[in-house]
Structures are given as structure tokens and as C-alpha cells.
């Protein structure tokens, strides 16, 4: 080798890498940077926004509110393996939310909904950059905007139901603006209006029907706006006390629900069961539902696992984990008197068990066999021997008794089920608003407006459907497992005063939506959470020792605390809810 050339070789070697900036420029693979919008990308962002409201989390629920609305009410217990199993929910149930550092459930629900809101806002920013002409047909842009605003409103609405004081985030806010947006920036009423504006825009800009059934339409927005106005009608002060009911809002509820009813697009399912059975998704009663799917190319399927803890635990065809068990009070509430009406005042004097609820036992509303799994009754409309519910299926009866939830479950061999680990996810949709709710919202508005007579046929529609919903609940030999008796109101069997009508409506809502979890939010809306729940606890704790120290504190327990970590993240910008 010629050593004189050596230096040159070294220099060449050394500088062959000198263009290091090129060497250091690497591009991420499988990602895109935020760039110019197209109609295609905007459509994709709207789809992602729909997915956002369905990105449910077992420990941060978004669709089923069983943790927040059912267990917190007089309808249900946490269930599962003792009070320590998913202890956060036990604290909810015991109204013991001052225990710090709770992250499961509330904090994740908060996070998940704001993730969904940010997806809607990302879609809106993209849609706002585009022009109508970019879309074919050009009307599509406004429709997509309306959909995104509907989805954003839905997220804000559910958050407001749970936490009351929440920051309202729209697409005009930058990240810096968002971090300056307080959770009490708006008054209670202003916040309702802000959310309502989104629903109103959606109502005004959405078509009456959409080619894709999963998209929201004009009437979904109308019904949701009615629901919002109904909540808004009950004015609350800063300590969550209902101070009055605004007639103007109630009138809006009537108008809006009338529009939905008059559209003729919706009706009650012939059988109550069909609202809770696979195969009837997006049926005539479903006004707005969150869509789930299975075998769809995703890793787990876009299944709902939000009730994945709630299967009867001991049944070999199920597996886990026996959460969300009906309370004794709820089971008692299904009993009817000789006239077939609820036992408004005496229902809770007894302690009904499966031994009482038999073909020859106490008379009950048929909806009990759609709602409550109990020993000896067919579970989920299946009367083959393997599906007859047994006490042995109950996980921890010593703490939570022998009843098990049923509406949110399917028969174990349902093709809509997928078992992942111990939990079963389902592709069954979760209805956010079904037509029965529209009818009862209208009835409630009429009653509070003093036009209770107009409410009676609405309530009776619900009861008639309930009465006829016995085809699926029976034993293999065709006999019913319970002694059904249910009648319509006729003004005589219950004098139809405003107070009685209100009592009937509230009862009807409890039974119709039992274990579907609006109960707690209803009680808070009506302003009767404290008396109702403390009365319930006074009785229930004599039956269930674990409730021994539970107590509802008015002015605090109507809402959940703002998650502490959000207060920390905003360096104290958010104000904690009263009482916490």
C-alpha cells in the first residue's frame, strides 16, 4: 500500500458521512402530518368522531352509565366479589367520593369524552377550511358539520349530566385557549344553551333520514334537544337545588317531541325484549344509538365492553364477574296491586325473593323478567335448562343478594358476543335515546305544565307495550315464570291529579328504564335525589349490611367531583364541585 495516499483515504472516509443532515432526516412511517384538508380527509375525521363516542372503556364508561346512573340510584348495587372489587364503584355507591386519588371510572370518562370532543372539533376545523363545492353533493358539507356538532353536543351533554361544571370546548379554541378555559366559565343555563346550540344546528341542517343508518338525522337531534331542554327546565342553583321549572323550556320539549312523534319514523318495538336483543339494532324504537360491530377486521372487534363485568359469574356458559345487581328496592317496585298498578306506597314493605315471584306468587309487571335475572326464571329469554338462572350463578350473594342484571346481557351463545379474557364484549348497539323516552319526556313536560291529561295516553302506550311483552319470557312449556298483572291508568284506578300523574310518570320511567341507568340523573333533575335515596338507604341497609354507612349528602352528591388530576393538570384553573 502506498502510505502517502493514506491520508487521502482517511479524509474521504471521514467526509463520506459529512452530509449528516441528510443522514439524520428520517420520516415516520405509517403517519401523516397535519396538512391540507380534502373532502375525503374531512369525511374520515367525521367517522373518527363517531368512533370517538363509541370508544368506550370498561373503567371509563361513555355509553352505558351503569356505574354513574344505576349503581348510584336506588336501582342497583355494584355487585361483583365484595365491596373491594373495583372499589371505586363501591365508593360511588356509598356516596363516599371524598376519598382521594380515584382515577378509575370518573377520571377516564372525563378523558374519553374530551377525546371524543377533540375528534369532533378536528373534523369541524377541517370542514370549515373547505367549501361546499368540495363536496358532492355540495349540501354534504353542512350535513357533516351538523353531524360533528351533534356528536360534540352529545359528549358535552353526558359530561354535564355527570359533572355539571365542565369546560365547553369548540373548534375555535387553540390548545392554549383550552388550557385557559375554566370549568365554570359559563353559568349552568349558559352551558345548557351552548350545548343546545349544537343540537339546534344539527336539527336545522340534518336531513330527515340518512343513507347510512349509523349517522344521526334531524329527529335524533330534535329528540336530543328535547332531552336537553327538559333537563334545562329544572333550574338548579349553585348547590344543585332545583329552584323552579321553566314553562318555556317545557313547551319547547312538547314541541320538539311532537316533531319527532309526528315524523312517523319511530314507534315502540312490539315486544319490549327487542330493545335488548341482538338482531334488532337500529329498530323503529332506536332514535339515537351508538353502533358496535364484530368480526370487523379490528383486533377485538369494535365491541362494547362497558358492561363486560356484568355477567352472572357462576354460570359456566358465562364467566365473569357478576357486577351490577338489581337492588331489593327495584325488585319490589315491579310488584303490582290487584288493579295491576304499582304499589306506590307499600311496595318496599316486603322483601320479595325468587320464591315469591312465581307463576302463582305476587303479581308483577312483566318487565321484571326483562330486567332481573333470578333463580328459576329463564335468563335472557332462553328456557332450555342450561339457561334457567340459578342462585349458584351469583357471585357474592352474602353481600349483594341473589338478583342479577339482564337487559345489557345476551344469551351466552349469541353470535354478537366475543369473549376476551374473562370478559364478554357485545356488538349489540347501546341506545342513547329510544322512542319510549321521547314519549315519556313529552308526558313529563305536559304534567309539569299542568296538562297531565295529555300525559296519560303517552304513559299508557308504554304500559300497553309492557303488558304485551310476555312472549319471550316464558318457560319451555309456554307458561310464564311470574304472575303478570299490569293495567293502564284510566283516571279512576289512580285519580289523575298532577301529583299522582307525576308519581305515575316517575314510576313508569323507573320500571321502563330500570338498569338502563337514567334513574339517578332523573332523580337529580327532579330535585328529589336526597329524599329518595336517603329513604331508600334507610330501608336497604337493613337488608344489605354493606350499605351500613352510606349516606347521600344534598348539595354534593348530585354530581361527581371534577377529577383531581384535571385540576392538577390545569394548575387549579378548574374549580372543584361544591362539597368535595
Amino acid at each position, binding site marked *: 500500500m502506498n502510505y502517502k495516499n493514506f491520508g487521502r483515504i482517511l479524509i474521504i472516509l471521514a467526509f463520506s458521512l459529512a452530509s449528516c443532515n441528510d443522514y439524520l432526516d428520517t420520516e415516520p*412511517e405509517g403517519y401523516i402530518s397535519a396538512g391540507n384538508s380534502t373532502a375525503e380527509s374531512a369525511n374520515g375525521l367525521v367517522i373518527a368522531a363517531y368512533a370517538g363516542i363509541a370508544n368506550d372503556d370498561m373503567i371509563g364508561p361513555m355509553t352505558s352509565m351503569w356505574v354513574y346512573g344505576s349503581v348510584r340510584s336506588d336501582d342497583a348495587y355494584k355487585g361483583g366479589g365484595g365491596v373491594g372489587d373495583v372499589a371505586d364503584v363501591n365508593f360511588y355507591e356509598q356516596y363516599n367520593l371524598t376519598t*382521594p386519588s380515584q382515577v378509575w371510572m370518573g377520571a377516564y370518562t372525563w378523558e374519553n369524552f374530551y377525546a371524543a370532543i377533540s375528534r369532533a372539533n*378536528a373534523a369541524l376545523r377541517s370542514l370549515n377550511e373547505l367549501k361546499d363545492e368540495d363536496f358532492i353533493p355540495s349540501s354534504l358539507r353542512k350535513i357533516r358539520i351538523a353531524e360533528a356538532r351533534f356528536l360534540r353536543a352529545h359528549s358535552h351533554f353526558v359530561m354535564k349530566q355527570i359533572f355539571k361544571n365542565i369546560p365547553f370546548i369548540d373548534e375555535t379554541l387553540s390548545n392554549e385557549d383550552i388550557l385557559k*378555559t375554566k370549568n365554570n366559565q359559563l353559568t349552568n343555563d349558559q352551558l345548557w344553551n351552548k350545548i343546545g346550540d349544537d343540537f339546534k344546528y344539527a336539527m336545522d341542517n340534518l336531513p330527515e333520514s340518512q343513507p347510512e343508518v*349509523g349517522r344521526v338525522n334531524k329527529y335524533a337531534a330534535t329528540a336530543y334537544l328535547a332531552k336537553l331542554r327538559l333537563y334545562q327546565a329544572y333550574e338548579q342553583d349553585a348547590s344543585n337545588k332545583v329552584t323552579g321549572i321553566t314553562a318555556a323550556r317545557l313547551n319547547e320539549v312538547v314541541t320538539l317531541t311532537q316533531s319527532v312523534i309526528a315524523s312517523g319514523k319511530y314507534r315502540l318495538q312490539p315486544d319490549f325484549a327487542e330493545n335488548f336483543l341482538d338482531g334488532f339494532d337500529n329498530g323503529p324504537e332506536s332514535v339515537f344509538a351508538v353502533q*358496535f360491530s364484530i368480526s370487523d377486521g379490528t383486533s377485538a372487534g369494535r365491541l362494547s365492553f362497558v358492561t363486560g363485568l356484568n355477567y352472572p359469574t357462576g354460570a*359456566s356458559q358465562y364467566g*365473569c364477574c357478576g357486577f351490577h345487581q338489581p337492588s331489593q328496592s327495584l325488585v319490589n317496585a315491579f310488584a303490582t296491586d290487584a288493579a295491576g298498578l304499582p304499589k306506590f306506597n307499600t311496595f318496599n314493605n316486603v322483601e320479595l325473593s325468587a320464591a315469591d315471584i312465581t307463576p302463582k306468587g305476587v303479581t308483577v309487571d312483566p318487565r321484571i323478567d326483562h330486567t332481573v335475572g333470578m333463580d328459576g326464571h329463564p335468563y335472557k329469554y332462553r328456557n332450555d335448562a342450561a339457561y334457567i338462572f340459578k342462585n349458584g350463578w351469583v357471585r357474592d350473594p*352474602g353481600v349483594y343478594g341473589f338478583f342479577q342484571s339482564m337487559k345489557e346481557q345476551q344469551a351466552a351463545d349469541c353470535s354478537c358476543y366475543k369473549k376476551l379474557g374473562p370478559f364478554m364484549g357485545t356488538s349489540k348497539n347501546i341506545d342513547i335515546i329510544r322512542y319510549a323516552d321521547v314519549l315519556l319526556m313529552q308526558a313529563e313536560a305536559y304534567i309539569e305544565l299542568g296538562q297531565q291529561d295529555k300525559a296519560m295516553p303517552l304513559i299508557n302506550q308504554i304500559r300497553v307495550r309492557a303488558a304485551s311483552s310476555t312472549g319471550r319470557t316464558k318457560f319451555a312449556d309456554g307458561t310464564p315464570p311470574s304472575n303478570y298483572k299490569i293495567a293502564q291508568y284510566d283516571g279512576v284506578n289512580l285519580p289523575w291529579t298532577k301529583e299522582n300523574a307525576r308519581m305515575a310518570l316517575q314510576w313508569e320511567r323507573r320500571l321502563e328504564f330500570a338498569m338502563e341507568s337514567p334513574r339517578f340523573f332523573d332523580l337529580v333533575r327532579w330535585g328529589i335525589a336526597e329524599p329518595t335515596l336517603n329513604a331508600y338507604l334507610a330501608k336497604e341497609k337493613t337488608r344489605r349490611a354493606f350499605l351500613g354507612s352510606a349516606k347521600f349528602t344534598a348539595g354534593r352528591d348530585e354530581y361527581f367531583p371534577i377529577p*383531581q388530576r384535571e385540576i392538577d393538570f390545569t394548575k387549579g384553573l378548574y374549580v372543584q364541585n361544591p362539597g368535595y
Partner: protein
Amino acid sequence: MKKTDCIPFQVGLKKILRIMKITAFIVFILSMQVYAKSFGQTEKLNLSMNSTIKDVIERIEEVSGYRFVLKYNASILDKKVDVKYTNESIERVLDDLLKETGFTYKIVDRYIAIRPVNETEVIDQQQKSVSGKVIDSSGIPVPGVSVVVVGTTNGTITDGDGGYSITNIPANATLQFSFVGMKTQMVEVGNKTSINVTMDEEAIGLDEVIAVGYGTQKKADLTGAISVVKMESLKSVSLSSGNSMQALQGRVPGLYIEKTGSPTGAPSRILIRGVNTLGDPNPLYIIDGVPTKRPEVFQSLNPGSIESVQVLKDASASSIYGARASNGVIIVTTNNGSKKNGEVSIQYNSNFSMQSEKNQRFKMVNAEDRGKILWQASVNDRVNPADGYGAIYGFDWNNDYNNPVLNKVTVKPFVGGDPNVPVGDTDWQAEAYKTGYVTNNDITISGGNDKSSALLGMGYIKNTGMMKYTNYDRISARLNAQTSVFQGKIKVGMNTQMVSSNETLQCPDLGSSPTPGLAINLAPTIPMYTLTGEYAGPIGSGYSDRNNPVHMQYLNRWDNTNRTFLFGNVFTEISPMKNLVFRSTLGIDYSMVNNKNIEQRFTEGFIARAVNSLRNINSNFTSVSWSNTLNYKLDFGQSKVAVLAGIESVGDNFKDITAYKEGFAVQTEEFFVLSAGTANGNSFGTAQSSRLFSQFGKVEYAFSDKYLATATLRRDGSSRFGANNRYGLFPAATLGWRISAEPFMANLTQISNLKLRAGAGRVGNQDVGSFASLGLYEPRYGATAFEGAGIPHVGFFDQYRNVGTAYDITGSNTGNLPSGFVSVQAANPSLRWESTKEFNIGLDFGIFNNKLIGAFDYFTRETSDILIRPPVASAVGEGQLQFLNGATKTNKGWELSLSYAGGKRDADFTYNISASAGHFKDKITVLPEEVRTGYPGNAEQSIIGHSELSVFGYVTDGLFQNAAEVAAHASQPGAAPGRIRYKDLNGDKKVDALDQKFIGTLLPAMEYSLRIELNYKNFDLAIFGSGVAGKTGYCPYIQMNNFVRGRDNAAPGLFNAWSPSNTNSTIPALTLSDNNSEFRTSDYFMINASYFKLRNISLGYKVPASALKKIGVVKELRVYAMADNVFWITSKEWQGPDPERTDVNTIPIPRTISFGVNVSF
């Protein structure tokens, strides 16, 4: 002659030989010629120099392979000569060179001895001759050993076979055998005529040359905090785990290793000087010059192929590695066979071990006793025990909650009333574990000379696993080879390591509960099998939804992770002129991981999986590095300068592919391939890459071998960082003072070595995602949070949480869905390096002729701009997290090592005692407010000023004895007699989150170790123990022994729980409802976890050479027996069996008994 006359002789010899050795190290000039007797005799020299004889001699050494030995400190060395030879014989050159110098030479083999011409060999009839052979500890002949009659100038050197013969020896003479790098030996001749000597290598000579990063340095000249571990001294360490990291434990002060009992032998935590970042604390490994952050590369090296390991602990030592060095650097040099002097040697090691976890088991109760405990807890809660547990137990009691009396507990005969499942009384730990057997065999063949050499190594380890159906095996191979051409001007070589391993490890049950925990906690009433022979599981109420752990392991027995590595380099070294070396190294670090996870269909009690599935995950990681360095050494009289300059590029690429399929008709191992699945399936894949480009330089300066200084500078550019801060500069400087070389120390003969070192430097850390600075959107069709990167959540539930962008908008319920995009990361173009500044001061000392040696180091470091990804308010929305340079930590500590070599060198009995201790204490000093909630602390006290691994919790104050005590105490929800009393630390009359404080740290304040090695004749005994002090740790047994967990089994301590009639207990009254939240973090669980463990005892026996002679080929044979994890001492508070087992979900560290042989041929 007078005795002192021999001194110049030795100095001269050593000096030249040292030169020889260093040159041999730096300029590897070898050829592939096989060594032969005639070596060099016919070789012709080309020389053209005008220099001193010393330089000429060195030059001849370089180009010819001859080695010179001087018998005198010859003044001729400095004589200037002008030589010019072309194709000349060595004899002719030497004749000319020594002409008129009064010296002559003698060529013995390839050694050239130079001695005065006038030295006459006096022949004395009364004097005698001695001959013999010199071998090293592995039985290989050592040529070139100087053999001198002490007190005379009479001597010789050994030939190529290690043989020597020396005449004219007076009576009562003593022979001195010496060779660089080996211990000098004195042997009395007496009336022996044959003396064979085995030379032992010196542990770490100060003249030892070690790798310090892109170059080498003499140990004597080191100025940074560097620990050197010679692997040859590790042969007595059990490698039953097959993991070289095991051998380092307790040998490097400041290196902290936590282990588990996994059959892979992989440690769970490796820290150098504690935790210095909030991110990945793993050190950087440099193996034969190739960087990797994958600890498994080092862990899978066969100890036989490792030449040495250096641990660079402080920033001044490691800053030459810049942006990746902040957690310390472990430099590994593998053996290349070049020291074999032409011989081929074969080293074979075989080890057989038996591993058992019996001593680490938790004592749990039997089925009936559990019933008694559940009864007591139920009646304490005033709950009918039959409501909760009537399906499992019959309770015969007086039904009086005020005065409960239990007559009898009967276990129901069948689980869940199923006549096919008779109740069990199962000891799940005994069922889940068995004795594990480990066989570990490796063979290393090496040979060559200093021109060409090669090393071939193969190893195979198999561990049958202690937990049933777990196992691990690994095959590894190494090929190192090098040669030189053009008279040694150019050297080329390669070092490669190939490893393939298979592992089947512990697995989780259907509900993600790991089997080691289930093997402790599962209810004993569940039997192993049903009557019909299936695995049994829970049936009926009262049971948890957890599975039979043995069944889970059985179901997962076909699961397998196959890891294949290829690691190594090809290099060339070019020495165009004296003292200048250019080196170019192309390195590869390749890893392929194939994971197969089969989930079988099964039914076990009420738990079932209806759909079976197969998931294959394949990932490929390739890191290609190319480094080019120039080393230049200059001597100006007393000053020596070494300069290094270099550039390096590292490119990493990672890809993974996951494929998933359901519905396999047949459940056999062979049938589970993707195409055999007929139901739902999907696939995923990601790709990532990053680049690093660096320039660096280093200057070493030594004056008079007393004053030492080093300066380094590295500039790194990383693709991971924002355009605004892509480059980082990492400087360091050190100073050293060899005090012992000062004249004023000359009288202090006890002190043989004393060196003061000080250094300061800065290093970096770049371990963030590959594209951490960019704002990104991704199409995330249908991922769960489990699959999405960087979505913070609760791990277990992530698999149930959709985070995708696809939606069933058509309501069709199935099939392909429309999908969109989602933001996954906000941009931060200003993202920059995490940097660590460190100051280190150290003292090395050797006393009593280096019999006692030691080192002390003190350091302080500050890591700033720590890369964190703080959470932001959720209102900002999805995928808006970004990496920031937000936090600062400090760390201080010291390390001390001492070692004493006792016994006379050639005595039958020698011993060596070494001890080390280290202390480090980290402290977070800056932490953004929004991330503080992620660390221990509360609204009033933050982690600032405390260790990252602090424990924050409540302070207990015994149990409430009666209602009056409850009333007198601050309001505490759940307070009652028999319950734990928590201190109202802030005195606000209520016990809440504010009544917590920092109660300790999970990292120990001090770790220490002690090693004793004894040698008696052919026996060697080594004892090694280490421990930690000042560690707070979680004791899992307290949860079992002091609290009832209604679904789990219980431990016997519960029979001594508090009750109104047993008020002296520290165990709270039994309850099933825990209204007092007693599982909160408190000093009840977080206790003193200090311990000392006797980790290893080994006893070896070397078969005497005389016996081996009969066998012939075997040069050395040693057999040994060993025990690991022998016994331990814990604090009084510690209740569990093993203080290192703080997590019941890991397989415990076994006690191991091993037997093995080391054979060399």
C-alpha cells in the same frame, strides 16, 4: 556479584517487554502462518532508520515477530544508529547493530537475548544444572519467561515450548521466574534438577492495558471512575443462569442488579450509580466497539469468550459515548485468541444445576383453616358466613354475632356441588413448581499468534424451569478472527456472536392474573383435577374468577418466544506510520424476535374460553454502526500525548408484524399455524427508524507518568430531536496524580500505589420515541389502547378499550368499516437532549506491595432537561401529549472497594478477601407541576427534594383497642376497635390524604458485598455474599398473613388477629370489607427491607498435573460444586421468606446446587 546488581537487570527486561506488549496490543500485526520452530529464521528484513537502537529493536519486533530480551539495562539502547537494509537476514542486522557495543546476541527460537560480550560463563564443577518447563494456569507453555538465578546475572529465557535449561547454579540458589502480566515466582533449587513452574496471571496489573472507548489505556493512567472485571477470575462463579450479568453482581461497586427466578436468568433491573433519569435507566453496552442498548446481547455471551469487562461509571469516563452514556457504559472485549503463542487451546466448561424455590414459599393455610378464618371475618362483619361461603363450607356455630362461637367448620365435599369435582386441599405452590434442572455447556477453541488468531466458541444452556411447563434454552456461537498483512501495517478481523434462544415462561390466566401469584393465593378447596381427569377450577359462588395456575401453564405450553441475535463487527486497523492507528469498524446489532401465543379453547369450572386463537408477532431490529477513528501517540521525553479523533454513525430500524387468527379445528401444537385458522383474523405492523451521527475527539496527556490529564469532546446529532436542537456537545476533562511516583513517597515503602483522580463531564440521553419532536396523525383503524402507542391507561383494561377510528356507520354490524385519522402526538421542534453533568473524585491505592488494593470514588451528578411526556388537561383532547425537557434530578454517592491478597505467593495456602460498598441518593429537584401527580406526594408535599423511588404513605400507630380510643383519635373513616390507627400527622383532627409523608425509598441507601477466596493446594473455596441497607420495601406476605382477602387463600398469622380477647396482636381484627382502607400505602406494608444474602459458595478441586499426565491431552481439569442463594438475614420486620421477593407475580430466585467441570486441552 552483589545482590543489588540484579535490579537494573530486571528493570531493563521489564521495560522492554512492556514496550513489546503495548505494541502488541496497539498494532496487531499477525499473519495466518502457523507457528513453527523455524519461524523467522529465514525471514528477511527491510529496514531504513536513523534512530536509537531501542527504536530499531522495536521496529524489528513490529515487522518480524521476533522479541528481544535484554539481560542488562543496556546503555546501548540510546545509541544512535543509521541502518538501511533490504531483504536482509536478522543475524546480519544484529551483527551490525551490536558491532562495537560490547554486546552480543543469542537467538533462541523467536526470542533474541542480548548480553555483554565479555560475560564469561564460568564453569564450576561444583555447580549444577536445572531444566524444566514453564506453563500458564491453563497449561499452555509460556515462552519468553526470564529465568534468573537470584543474586547473579546468570539466567536465560524459556523457549517456544516453555522449556529452559540453566547451568552453573550454585548450591542453595533460588530461581526467579518472571514474565509481564504474570506473578513473579521464586523457587529454591535445593537438590532438584528439574523444576517445572506454573505461572499465574497477575489479577490486574497496573501495566494492564484496558479498553476505554475507541482506544486503550494503561490502568495506571486511568483517571475516570472505571471498574475493570477480569472474566478469568470469574470462572468459579456459578453461571447456572447462563447470564454473564450474574457474574458481575457484587464485583463492581455502584452496579446494582435485581433478579428474579425466570428461567431466562434475565435480571429485572440493572443500574449504574442509581437512577439518573425518569425514563429508561439501562446502561449502554459497547461490545467489541459496537454499541447496543439491548442488555440481552451481553447477557448471552459465554463467559469463556469474554476477555474483560469495564464499567464506565462517571461522565468523564463515558462522555466519549455522548448522547447515550448517561446511564453509564459497560464495555466488553471478547477474547480473540491472540495470546496463545501459536498454540491451539480448547476450554470446555460443563455445569449441571438443580434449582428449587422451596425456601421461598409462602406458608398458607389448608382448606379447613381457611374456613375458620372466613367464618371469623364474616361474624366480625356481622354477615352470615353461609351467605358468602355456604357453597364451600358448612359452618356450625351459635348464630350469635355478639358472642360468636364456632363449633365446627366442615368443607363441603364437592366444589360447587358438582359430584365430578371432589373438594381438594391443594398446596398450589407444591403443585405449580418442581425442581428445575439446568445444563450449561460451552466450549471455546482458540489459537493463533500475534499475527493471526481465531476463537471459536459454542455454548448451549437448557433450563427446564421450576414452574411447570416453563423452559428456556439457548444456543450461542462466536467466531472471532483476525489477521494482519503488509508487515502488520494493516490488520483486519471480525467478531461475531450468534444467539438463538427459545423460551416458554410464566403466563397469565384468563383474567391476566400471573400464575406465580395464583400459585400462592388460589383457594385450597379447588382440587388439581376432576374425577374425570380434567384440570379443576372454581364452580359456584364464593370463588374468585381466577384459574388453576397449573392448567394455565399447561394450556400455554406451546407458547414460545424465539430470539435470534446477530451481533458483531468487521474491522480494519491501518498503521501507516509508527504510533498512528486508523481503525474502521462496521458493526451490526440485529435481533429478530418471533413470538407465538396460542390461546386454546378450554373449560375449567365456570371459566371457559370458547374460541381458540393464534397470535404471531415478528419483530426485526437492525442497528448498523460505522465508526472511524484515528489514534496517535507521541512521546516528548517525559511527556506523552495520545490523540484520538473519530466519527461514528448509528442507524436503527425497527419493524414488527402481528398476525392473528381465530378458529382452529384441532388443538395440537402443529396445527396452530395461521392458515389453519378459519375465523376472524387481522394483522398489524409498524416501522420506526432513527439515526445518530457523531464526531468526537480525545487528548490524553501524561507528564513523567505522574501527572495525567484527559480531555474529550463529542458532538452528537440525532434524528430523534427537533430541528432546533438536533446537535448536542458533550465535553469532559479529567486530572490524575500518581502520588506514589513522586520522589517524596520513595521512603514510604508500604505504599506501592497511590493515585488521585478527578473528573468532570457531561453526557446525554436520547431515549425518547423515534419521532418525538413531530406532530403526527395516524389512521388507527381498530386498535385497542393496548396496541396504540403512548396512550396512558391502566394496562390490564387497555385490551378492552377501543381507541380506533373505524365505525360501523352503516349499521351492518360486521365486515370492513369506514375509518378516519386521529392525532397521536403534538409537535415540539425544540425538543433536545437530556444532559447529565457529573463530577467525580477518586483515590486508587495499593499498600504492602499491592497486597491491599482499593479505590474510593465520590460523585455528584445532575441530570437536567429530563425528557418527560407530561399529561395535559383532557380538554386539550386526544393525542396532544408531547415530550418536553422538563425535569432535573441530582444524584450523589460514593463507592469503595478493598481487596487483600494474603498468604505467600508460592505457599500452599493463599487467600483473597475483597469487599465493596456503594451508596447513592437521588433527588428530584425540578419537576413540572402537571406531572407531579404521577409521583409520590400529595397536594402539600411533592416529590421535589426526594428520590424518584420514594415511598409516600401513612404512618400507623398500632390498633385501636376500644371505642374510647377511637373517639379520642382524629376522625378517621372506618375507625373501630381492632382497626389500624393512622397518625394525624398535620394535627387537623382528621385523617386524610394530607396525613402522609415520605417514609423511605425503594432503592437501598447502601449496597455492599464481601467475597472470600481461599486456595489450599489444589482446592479452592469461594464465598460471596452481598446485601443492602436502608431499603424500604413492600412485604407481600403481610397482605396474606395479616389480612383476609375473601377470594384468596390466607396465611396462618390470621389466627392471631386482634379480638377483644386478644388485644396484644398487631394484626387487625379480621374483616372482609376493609372499611378502614387498610391496604393504603403505609409503614404497615412498607417496611425495612434490608438484608444480607450469602449468594454463592463454591468449592473446587484441581486435579494435579501429575495425574493429568497419565490422561495425556488434558492440560487442566477442575471439578467443583456450588450453592447459590444459600441463606439470608432480614430485618426483624420482614415477614416473608425472601427479602428480594417483593412481587408475588414473579418466580422466586431459586436456591441452586450445581456441579461442574472446567477442562482445558
